[in-house]
């Protein structure tokens, strides 16, 4: 039956190919967390713990067992969908991820959309008018974007728009405290608030999102703009564009139907990459804006050797990237029909 749906078959095949990757990630993340410096039992036994209470903690955490036993137990729990209990947050890792991953994704996706909306037109304009002020502007924005670290941009934006001008809301995370968070459906506050029809909260969440998303967008638009410009320049100087122009196609058709569409492939690739490192760069933005995201969660878990949380984070990220790669590949085939799954 699947043969009659080649695309579905291809997707399933890709998903099946991801299984060994995920298994590898499970093993490696388990081993790497155990290789972390520090003894979580000592850390979690508390400030004034003596050796007996450290030992009690170790037993309670299951860390007294040999590594293979711990691993089998971990995999067993994992198969039942149990990611374990985070010791630093005191909640199941799955719950933590469910509340924090959407926060990070909402921020990153908003920033990416913002970046694409600015960077792609900027890149196109710069490519069509090389050497003009637009091109220079593009270069300045790109240079500024990559050279300003996000925590600096973040603090600068807070200083100007919140501290001096007072037009931005207080950088207190996803929602100011006068709002209640919307009921959890997707975990994306903008979507959840819209689903509830609670536009007051929606506006509150959107306002909180502006500064951190702008910070992250400034950082991510640089590679996108650069890549758009370069790809457009290549496309515009290629033979088929010359042919199209010679055939008398309108400037608009040449630019958008032929040049941009061909230039989009590398841009989509860059987008996939930018998305992955933006999730990493999030950590600093999250700290500055008190954003309860996954980056700061992972860093804190790492610092205290909170095994379950780190493993859960790595696994969630691995699954996210498998998904992301799939989406990027699907986008390829949508943009360029010549690329089929079979070719891969």
């Amino acid at each position, binding site marked *: 039956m699947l043969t009659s749906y080649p695309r579905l078959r291809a997707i399933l095949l890709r998903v099946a190919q991801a299984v060994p990757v995920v298994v590898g990630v499970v093993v490696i993340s388990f081993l790497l967390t155990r290789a*972390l410096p520090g003894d979580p039992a000592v850390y979690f036994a*508390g400030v*004034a713990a003596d050796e007996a*209470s450290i030992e009690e903690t170790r037993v309670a955490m299951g860390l007294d067992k040999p590594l293979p036993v711990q691993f089998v137990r971990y995999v067993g729990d994992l198969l039942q969908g149990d990611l374990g209990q985070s010791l630093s947050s*005191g909640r199941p890792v799955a719950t933590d991820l469910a509340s924090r991953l959407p926060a990070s994704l909402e921020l990153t996706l908003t920033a990416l959309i913002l970046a694409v909306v600015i960077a792609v037109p900027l890149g196109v304009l710069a490519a069509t008018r090389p050497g003009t002020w637009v091109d220079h502007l593009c270069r300045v924005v790109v240079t500024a974007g990559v050279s300003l670290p996000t925590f600096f941009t973040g603090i600068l934006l807070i200083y100007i728009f*919140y501290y001096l001008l007072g037009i931005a809301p207080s950088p207190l995370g996803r929602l100011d*405290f006068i709002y209640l968070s919307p009921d959890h459906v997707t975990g994306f506050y903008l979507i959840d608030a819209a689903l509830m029809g609670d536009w*007051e909260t929606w506006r509150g969440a959107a306002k909180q999102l502006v500064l951190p998303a702008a910070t992250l967008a400034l950082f991510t638009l640089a590679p996108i703009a650069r890549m758009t410009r370069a790809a457009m320049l290549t496309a515009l100087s290629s033979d088929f564009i010359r042919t199209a122009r010679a055939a008398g196609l309108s400037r608009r058709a040449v630019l958008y139907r032929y040049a941009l569409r061909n230039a989009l492939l590398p841009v989509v690739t860059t987008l996939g990459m930018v998305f992955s490192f933006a999730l990493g760069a999030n950590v600093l933005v999250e700290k*500055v804006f008190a954003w309860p995201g996954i980056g700061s969660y992972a860093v804190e878990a790492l*610092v205290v050797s909170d095994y379950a949380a780190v493993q859960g984070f790595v696994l969630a990220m691995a699954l996210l990237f498998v998904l992301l790669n799939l989406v990027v590949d699907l986008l390829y085939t949508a943009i360029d029909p010549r690329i089929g799954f079979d070719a891969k």
Partner: protein
Amino acid sequence: MTDQTSRRNFLKMGAAGASMLPFLRVMPAAAQGNDTLVVVTGATINSLDLHRTGTSRASYQVGINCYDRLLTFGTKEVPGNGLSYDYSVVEPELAESWSVSDDGMTLTFKLKPNATFWDGRKVTAADVKWSFDRAVSVGGFPTVQMKAGGLERPEQFIAEDDATFVIKLDRPSKLTIPDLAVPVPYIINSVEALEHATDDDPWALEYLHTTPAGSGAYKVARWNPGEQLVYERNDDWVGGPLPAAQRVIIREVPSPATRRALVERGDVQVAFNIPDKDAAELAETLDVFSTPVENCIHCLCPNFAFEPFQDPDVRKAIAYAVPYEDIFQAAAFGRGLPLWGGSEEITDTAWPRKTQYYTDLDKAKEHMAKSGYAEGFDVPLSISLDLASWMEPTALLVQEALGKIGINVTIEKIPGANWRTAVLVEKRLPLHLENFGGWLNTPDYYFFWAYKDGHLFNSSNYRNEEIEALVDATLHMPMDDPEYAPQIKRMFEIALDELPRIPLYQPALNVATNGAEGYEFWFHRQLDARVLKAV
């Protein structure tokens, strides 16, 4: 939001403009203006139950604000620094009165007759017993802390009748009463907890972890770990004067720069535990309280397991080489108290005290020349990356100064997760920085943890037979005993002469307020929300 409309003003404007806000729909009392206080802190509250393994320090505040103890401490003024708890005055919280038997072995507490839990049930001695049993049975930190006051086994706790609770001690100790006023022995609604206890979890650790069941001044209205905790006042509280704020919101903001911007703008009323640098700079514009932390010392510790440090002249050379003033300014921005340049003669039992040492390179060189290591040696100086804000500048200054007397120091930075194991458990760091502070404010208690052989905070592997005997003798002795002061003075004398720990300065806990008053410092270094008031 413009300059004129800060959040406070906004709430003050009342229901007229704010009636559309969902928050007010759910919690209409917020429209009353001064009723809500917002506090920002950098630390994470990861559990609502202090007795649980892995509960972070910041979470202790739930134990303080949501639960009651039998006893609490009084309040005193700290000159120039607002209010502080008063170790010397013990006041009732859930107990109405208490008495100590003549031999000091039996403590009898009468509970307040009108004390109720949040669910309306009367607080009984059985609840107290269950809570104390729990604290001594769950292991880990709470059990260790209970032990410090001589509270070790459930058999010691007797619920005589509903209103009478008795503690039987193995030996009289001056630490027992104060230890009942620390955050650990709080009283839980045992009936509610037992409903949720299971065979695997007889102490309802899972339930109380997320759902406090107490009688305290505040209930937890909302808790989003990693984001915020919202306290809602319990109007039936009898443990003390009713708190002024109806609601206190604790918001977690990891970046110190952001916390500072928030409190400067007045959008939050309290910034708790701010860095020394911010405290020094904000002191001119806001109310900043920098209370020296009682019984806490930032120390440079030469480890006796490292051979050159067994030479007393080497340790003294270091003590004279350390640039105390520079460290105090660079690492603490002058917040806290200096602990150098005192007199050698010990006339009182105040601790921490100024040592007889001061920066004098000539003296340092003299001692080095006298020692068996006149030509110097190499040593790593270890610091924790988690505590880098004070340890890093301190280490750099120490490195520079010791270089001048021939000790070649390399700085070793240890990740936070590794630090406790290396410094306190394995005690393997030759030269390191350490910052122990004791909750119970007596010198003998400090010495018990930091100078006795094998004890956790004795990271220098120091052992002195006389100190061992003196600590054992003084630990439970009443402070007005005529034997007490001379023995304590002798302890100081030995410790400051032998220098297993070289005191650098006494750190401060910094709190900035903008629109709130009544802040009170506590030894546990967490926020007591009950005394805060909006202005």
